[in-house]
């Protein structure tokens, strides 16, 4: 085993540890790179007629971001291996699989370290974007602008929306997917561990780049970046575009890596029919990521060209069309909805049998549901454009395909109901969150039918009804599953217990307050309150004041969660037992903390993961099998 490759001798002074390829170097080189790029871009822009005539030089900003990112990734050490390959050094599988604190602040190819890095990044920016939501709700206490002018308010909305979309796309698949997929399939690593590590550092850089928009005059488009507004917007738009390109690239790479891993790295006996549903959900998500995110990246690259090189993709006066962006964006944007939702269903179906103590009901149906959702989600995107003036005869097709998606989604609900049927549930915190997730997603899904239906969408489009709908699916569905996953796997990932009382208080407060915050917004939408507007009609003030106060309390309940995380992880540090939930999952059969390379010898899988309460059920794996080659069947 290759451990402790770079462990420093104990005698070295502590500051020496800061020198080398790590986050600190990455930040320093990132800033230097930005400065060089912005200066170069300034020089280039001065020589160009169309830049010289305006007072804004987008070339300088984009070049600054580009070279800044080169410096950042170079400082983190991501160019070392590509350069050594350029010089003909043989391929290697991994590096820096060491122990110790330093590995969390550098490129590390241990998938468990990457999982923890993801978890921390997501939690930090979840609170930043959540704080943003509090500022939005503060402004909306009054029907006319009271704290911020309209453009600042729009920037707040855009920052909240974009940051949450970027984070939530990685919320389950990042921390839990990276940590658990190799273990769950009986492997020691991901197929491409350096790419895996790179995605987490992209996911850290994206929200920081996005936040830089505040210093560049903000951006007015919300998370969707619609043209021609985006073509006309000031420099802050460049931050949005760069951040989303980063996120889109990361999504593509995550999808690529997960698919390769599950295809090639499964342990002997880990047949497709024994794959845990958590892994199946990540596979379905990975397909969406690999195929839809490149379209987003291309669309944003075209936007870069429009803003820097005078191309006219998105301005109709000169042979372009804003609909081109809208189509490309939603070709990614609708699969994105399931990139958000599917991992959450994976968590739910993984956790349900453990706490119901009975086998999962309808394994094959669940797999069919997930793959069916993935396939259909590429054929629905124009339901976002029903009222945009698209060719009207297209509408029934997109209405039908969208409504068809409720069939495979219904499969997953039937799986959950069948598993819950006659179960003697153990109402632990993870299960509570899963039950609430199903409840919330049901409301989110049913409200979606009204938006997929063209006649009702004509009145509801662009209103708070849409906003309530998407928060029910993303926060109420995926967000709750994120909490379920956290409370379920935290003892495994950290080896520590969390405060159970606080967790229960968090559950009940967040469940009640989530619903009291977002359910009234359906009403606000039906009463014609438009999204992304700083003003609203005065008769809507009682609803908005109620929602704002409820939202503040919801934010407070999230703080309880934050306190629990920090207290349990950093202060109390009470060791957890190895398998507190008596789960059959492979990850729970390993010692805590999980050894650097997971398995001393590769396991042989001999049974399915959900045979709870089945008489004579075999344990899932034989841990000390002969050293056999990795791979399926």
């Amino acid at each position, binding site marked *: *085993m*290759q451990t402790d490759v770079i462990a420093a001798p104990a005698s070295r002074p502590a500051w020496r540890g800061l020198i080398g390829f790590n986050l600190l170097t990455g930040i320093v080189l990132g800033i230097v790179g930005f400065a060089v790029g912005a200066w170069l871009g300034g020089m280039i822009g001065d020589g160009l007629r169309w830049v010289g005539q305006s007072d804004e030089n987008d070339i300088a900003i984009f070049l600054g971001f580009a070279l800044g990112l080169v410096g950042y990734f170079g400082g983190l050490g991501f160019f070392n291996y*590509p350069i050594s*390959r*350029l*010089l*003909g*050094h*043989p*391929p*290697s*599988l*991994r590096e820096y699989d060491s122990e110790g604190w330093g590995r969390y602040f550098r490129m590390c190819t241990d998938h468990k370290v990457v999982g923890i890095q993801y978890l921390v990044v997501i939690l930090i920016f979840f609170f930043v974007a959540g704080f943003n939501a509090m500022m939005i709700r503060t402004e909306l206490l009054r029907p006319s602008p009271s704290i911020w002018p309209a453009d600042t308010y729009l920037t707040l909305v855009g920052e909240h929306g974009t940051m949450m979309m970027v984070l939530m796309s990685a919320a389950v698949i990042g921390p839990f997917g990276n940590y658990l997929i190799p273990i769950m399939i009986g*492997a*020691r690593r991901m*197929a*491409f561990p350096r790419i895996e590590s790179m995605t987490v550092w992209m996911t850290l850089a994206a929200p920081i780049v996005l936040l830089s928009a505040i210093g560049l005059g903000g951006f007015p488009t919300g998370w969707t970046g619609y043209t021609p507004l985006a073509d006309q917007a000031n420099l802050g738009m460049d931050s949005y575009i760069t951040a989303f390109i980063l996120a889109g690239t990361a999504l*593509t790479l995550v*999808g*690529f890596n997960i*698919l*390769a891993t599950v*295809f*090639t*790295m499964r342990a002997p006996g880990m047949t497709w029919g024994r794959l845990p549903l958590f892994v199946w959900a990540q596979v379905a998500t990975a397909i969406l990521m*690999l*195929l*839809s995110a*490149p*379209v987003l*990246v*291309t*669309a944003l*690259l*075209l936007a870069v*060209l*429009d803003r820097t*090189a*005078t*191309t*006219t*993709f998105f301005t*109709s*006066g*000169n*042979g*372009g*069309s804003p*609909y*081109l962006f809208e*189509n*490309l964006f939603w*070709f990614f944007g609708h699969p994105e909805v399931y990139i958000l939702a599917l991992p959450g269903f994976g968590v739910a179906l993984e956790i349900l049998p453990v706490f119901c103590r009975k086998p999962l009901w309808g394994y094959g149906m669940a797999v069919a549901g997930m793959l069916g959702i993935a396939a259909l989600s590429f054929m629905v995107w124009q339901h976002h454009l029903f009222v945009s003036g698209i060719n009207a005869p297209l509408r029934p097709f997109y209405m039908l395909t969208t409504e068809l998606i409720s069939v495979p989604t219904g499969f997953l609900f039937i799986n959950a109901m069948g598993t819950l049927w006659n179960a003697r549930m153990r109402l632990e915190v993870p299960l509570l969150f899963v039950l609430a997730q199903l409840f919330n997603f049901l409301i989110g899904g049913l409200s979606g039918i009204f938006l997929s239906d063209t006649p009702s969408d004509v009145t509801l489009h662009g209103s708070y009804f849409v906003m309530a709908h998407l928060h029910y699916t993303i926060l109420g569905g995926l967000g709750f599953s994120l909490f379920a996953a956290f409370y379920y796997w935290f003892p495994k990932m950290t080896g520590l217990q969390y405060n159970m009382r606080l967790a229960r208080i968090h559950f009940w407060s967040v469940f009640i307050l989530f619903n009291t915050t977002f359910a009234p917004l359906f009403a606000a939408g039906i009463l014609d309150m438009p999204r992304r507007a700083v003003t609203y009609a005065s008769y809507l003030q009682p609803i908005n004041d109620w929602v704002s106060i409820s939202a503040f309390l919801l934010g407070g309940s999230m703080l309880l969660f934050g306190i629990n995380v920090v207290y349990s992880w950093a202060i109390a540090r009470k060791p957890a037992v190895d398998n507190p939930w008596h789960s059959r999952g492979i990850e729970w059969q390993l010692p805590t903390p999980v050894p650097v390379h997971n398995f001393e010898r590769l396991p042989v899988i001999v049974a399915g993961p959900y045979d709870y309460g089945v008489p004579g059920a075999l344990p899932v794996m034989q841990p000390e099998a002969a*050293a056999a*080659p*990795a*791979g399926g069947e």
Partner: protein
Amino acid sequence: MADQQLIEGEDIQAAVRNYWVGSRLWIAGLVFYFLAFAFSFLYLRSLNANHMWHPAKVQAPAVWGTAIVAALVVSAIVFTIARTALERNSLSIWRWAALVAFLLALTAAALQIVEYRELGFGPGAGGFASTFVAWTGGVLVVVLGMAYWLETIWATSIRAGTTLADTSRGERRMLAANVEGFGAVWYFVVAVAVATYGLLYWVG
């Protein structure tokens, strides 16, 4: 197992399969990347907003385009020779042919950059002009990435030793898998370049 080949303590079978699976997945991702350009082309062309899709004075320079695509096609053919040579263990042919294939890919990239300077119209001269610049640029980026990949394979085989006998069986299997994976993606990219050429220079 008697014939177990290891790198860094791990059986190479998974790594070998990763080349195969990874290259196919990469193709799948690239399909959608190029699809976005193709969609832009077809969409803007059919809308022809303000009759500004393709003003008559905008002429894609077919000579340069032909040269670029020819370089790519010849690179793919020479690569096929290199790959066959490697399968037959004739290492010196592999080395020269792989080097030529790599240099041809770079030549195509260089010709593309020259073409931008000789274009005769700006990227703002309508929908076609915009799409032309962006799509050829999108191909250019991928070609450069593929050239990098081919160089790493070539350099690895140079460094690995003067004769194949110097290398271990495991290293040879890894090399062969890498070459196979690269080939799959390269043929795909060259095919896309040919199709792009047809649309941009002839359909317009």
